[in-house]
C-alpha cells in the first residue's frame, strides 16, 4: 500500500461527500440532546457551568490575572476549544459502534461518519467563541480583525481531531479497551496543556516540550488571537500544518489497514 494513497482517498471521500457531511453534522448537533427540555441549549449550558466552577475554584489558587488578562477570560479562551476537541475524540471512539448498521451494510466510506462528528464540533466551537465575544468586551480586552483568523484555527484543530479519530474509531471496535483508555486519559491530557495554568509557570525547557503535545500549538494560537489579538506566527502555522500532515498520513494509513476488519467485526 502506497503511504500517501490512504490520505488521498480520505480527502477525496471528504470532498465528494461534503454536502452529506454538512447536513448530517447540523442534524447531529440539533438532535444530540433530543428529548431534553433545553435541547440544543445543553451544548452551551455545560461549558458555561464548567467555566463558572473553574473560575470560582481557581481564582483562589491563581492570581486574578494571568499574562495580564482576567483569569476567566484566559481560562475560557482555552477551555472552550479543548472541550470541543475532547468531545470530538470521545464521540469518535464510539462512532463506528453507533453507526454499525450503516458501516456493516453499505459501501459508504466510514470515515464520513467521523467527519460528521468533527464538523458538528466545529459548529459547537463557533457557538462557544460567539459567546466569548461579550466576555472579551466585558473584561476590557479588545476586538480586532484578527478574530477572523479564529474560525480557521478552530477548523484546523477539529481537523486534527478527525485525524486522531481515523486511528481511534477502528481501534476501539477491534480492541474495546482502547475506548476505556481514552476516556481515562482525556482528563489527564487536559492537565498537560496550559489551559487552566499559564505555560510560564513551567521551566523553560518544559515549555519547548509542550510543542510535542499536538493540541498545544492550536490552543496557544486560539489564546493569542482571543486575548492578545495577535495572529499565529509563520512558525506556529508550520507547526499546526506539520502535526496535521503527520497525523493525517498516519491516521488514514491505520484506518485503511483496519477498515475491512472493522466491517467484518460489526
Amino acid at each position: 500500500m502506497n503511504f500517501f494513497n490512504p490520505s488521498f482517498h480520505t480527502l477525496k471521500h471528504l470532498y465528494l461527500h461534503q454536502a452529506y457531511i454538512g447536513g448530517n453534522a447540523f442534524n447531529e448537533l440539533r438532535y444530540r440532546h433530543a428529548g431534553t427540555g433545553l435541547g440544543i441549549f445543553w451544548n452551551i449550558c455545560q461549558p458555561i457551568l464548567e467555566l463558572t466552577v473553574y473560575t470560582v475554584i481557581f481564582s483562589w489558587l491563581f492570581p486574578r490575572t494571568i499574562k495580564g488578562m482576567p483569569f476567566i477570560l484566559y481560562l475560557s479562551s482555552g477551555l472552550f476549544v479543548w472541550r470541543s476537541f475532547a468531545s470530538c475524540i470521545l464521540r469518535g471512539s464510539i462512532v463506528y459502534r453507533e453507526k454499525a448498521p450503516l458501516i456493516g451494510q453499505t459501501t459508504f466510506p466510514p470515515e464520513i461518519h467521523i467527519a460528521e462528528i468533527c464538523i458538528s464540533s466545529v459548529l459547537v466551537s463557533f457557538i462557544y467563541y460567539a459567546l466569548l465575544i461579550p466576555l472579551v468586551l466585558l473584561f476590557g480586552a479588545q476586538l480586532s480583525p484578527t478574530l477572523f483568523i479564529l474560525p480557521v484555527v478552530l477548523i484546523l484543530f477539529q481537523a486534527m481531531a478527525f485525524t486522531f479519530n481515523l486511528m481511534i474509531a477502528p481501534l476501539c471496535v477491534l480492541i474495546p479497551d482502547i475506548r476505556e483508555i481514552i476516556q481515562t486519559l482525556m482528563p489527564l491530557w487536559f492537565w498537560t496543556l496550559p489551559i487552566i495554568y499559564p505555560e510560564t509557570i513551567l521551566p523553560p525547557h518544559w515549555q519547548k516540550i509542550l510543542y510535542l503535545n499536538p493540541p498545544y500549538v492550536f490552543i496557544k494560537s486560539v489564546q493569542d488571537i482571543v486575548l492578545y489579538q495577535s495572529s499565529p506566527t509563520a512558525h506556529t502555522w508550520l507547526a499546526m500544518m506539520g502535526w496535521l500532515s503527520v497525523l493525517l498520513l498516519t491516521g488514514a494509513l491505520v484506518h485503511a489497514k483496519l477498515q475491512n476488519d472493522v466491517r467484518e467485526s460489526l
Partner: protein
Amino acid sequence: MKRDIIVEVTRLDKAYKIYATPKQRLTEWLSAGKLKRHMPYRALEGVNFRIRRGEFIGIIGRNGAGKTTLLKAISGLIPPTSGEIACKGKILSLFNLGTSLNLQLSGRKNVKRTAVLLGFPYGYVEKYLAEIERFAELGNFFDLPVALYSTGMRMRLAFALFTYLESDILILDEVLAVGDIFFRQKCYERLNELIKNETTIIMVTHNMSTVKEYCDRVLVLEKGKVHFDGPPQKAIRKFAEIQGKGKAVQTLSEVDISQNPLALSAGGESHCSPSKNEAMQRPEKKRRYVELLDWALTDRAHRPCNQFFQGDQAYLFFEFQTAAPIGLPVAEIRISDQYGKLIHGKNSLHNGILEPKSLKKNAQFRLLNRIRLSIAQGHYVIGFQLFMVLRQDLPKADPNENLGDKLQPIWNEPKISRIEILPRKRHGLPASHKGICDLPGSWEIHTL
C-alpha cells in the same frame, strides 16, 4: 465475462479471523503477526457461479452456511480472501429493513439520506419521492420523525426506498420474512415489476414458498460451498436433505418398500414408514407407559416431508412399545398455526376406533394418521398426544357415553414437527380456496 452474464463468481474463498478475546488480537498485532492467535474460519470455499441479467436467484442454506457472507462479498462490503467477483452495473443491497434509518429525521429526509449512503447522487431520489411516499403508505407520517413510526411503518419506508432506487442487481437478505402479510404481498408485487424490468435479484430466504414462486434458479449453500445450483424444486429437496442430520433422506426411487420392516398395507395402499426419517427431529422419549420406537411424517409417495401443497395427503406414523400394560390407546393429532391457534385436532375416538382394548407389557403397536391438508398456505406446527382409556372405563352398553373425561395422557409431544403448506394454484386462482380451511363442498350452477 459474456454479455448477458451480470455476476460471475470464480473460486471465491472467504476466511474470517476469529479472535477469542481482544487481547489475542493485540498479541498478534504486537508480534507483527509472528504469533498467530486467531482461529481461521472459512465462511466460503471455492464458490463458483454465474448469474444472467434478469435472473431471480435464491440462496438457501442452513444458518452459518455462508449465505450472508456471499451476499456481502458480491455487494463489495467485504473483500474475498481469494478468488474473483465480477459484477456489471449498480448493486443495491438490503440487509436489514429499517436499521439504517435515522430516528430523528423524517421519513422524507431519511429517504434522501439513505439514497446518498447507497451511493446515489445528491438529489437523485427527488423524482421518486412521490412514488416512495405512495408505496410506503405513511400519510402525514412521511414528514414526521421516524422515531414516531411503528416497526411496520419503518419497514415499509425502507423497502419502498430500495425498490424504487434504480439498480441492475438487487440483493435482499431475508428482508421479506418480516412485516405483516399485506406488506409482504405488496413487496412481492413490486418484485414482480422489477423482474419485468430485468432487474437481477439475488435473495437469501428461508421461505420455500418464495423460492418456488419466484426463483429461476437456487443455490444451496452448505458449509461455505455450493451444494447445489439448479431449479427451485430440486434445490428445496436438496436443502431438506442437508437439514437432516447430515445424511441424505432416501428418495422414493431409493426406498425399497418390500425390504423395509415397517412397510405396511392399509386400505389397499402401500405405505412406507421410513425408519430413518432424518429430516425430522426425534422427540425426547418419555417413558412411563409407552416408549416411542419410531415415527415419520411423509407425503403420499412415502418420502419424509415437511412441505406440502394445499390439499396434499400427509401420513403420520408412530411405533410404540408398551413399558407397562395399558388400556385402549387413543392417538390425537393437533395442527396449530404460527400464532398457536388450534386449526385442527382429532383423535382416534373421533374415528370410532375402540380396538385394541388393552395391550400387555412390551407389546408393539403402530399408529397411522392420514390427513388431507386442505388448509391455508403458511407454517404450522403438528402436535401429537397419546392417551389410554382403561378397559373398565370403556362403554359397554351406551355408545354415546362421554369418554372425554376418561382419557389418560401417556405420551405427549406438542411440537413434533413443523410443516409448510404451499399454495396450490387452481383454475387460474392463486390458491385452492380462501380462508383457513377448505371444507368439503362444491358449487353447482344451473341455468333456469
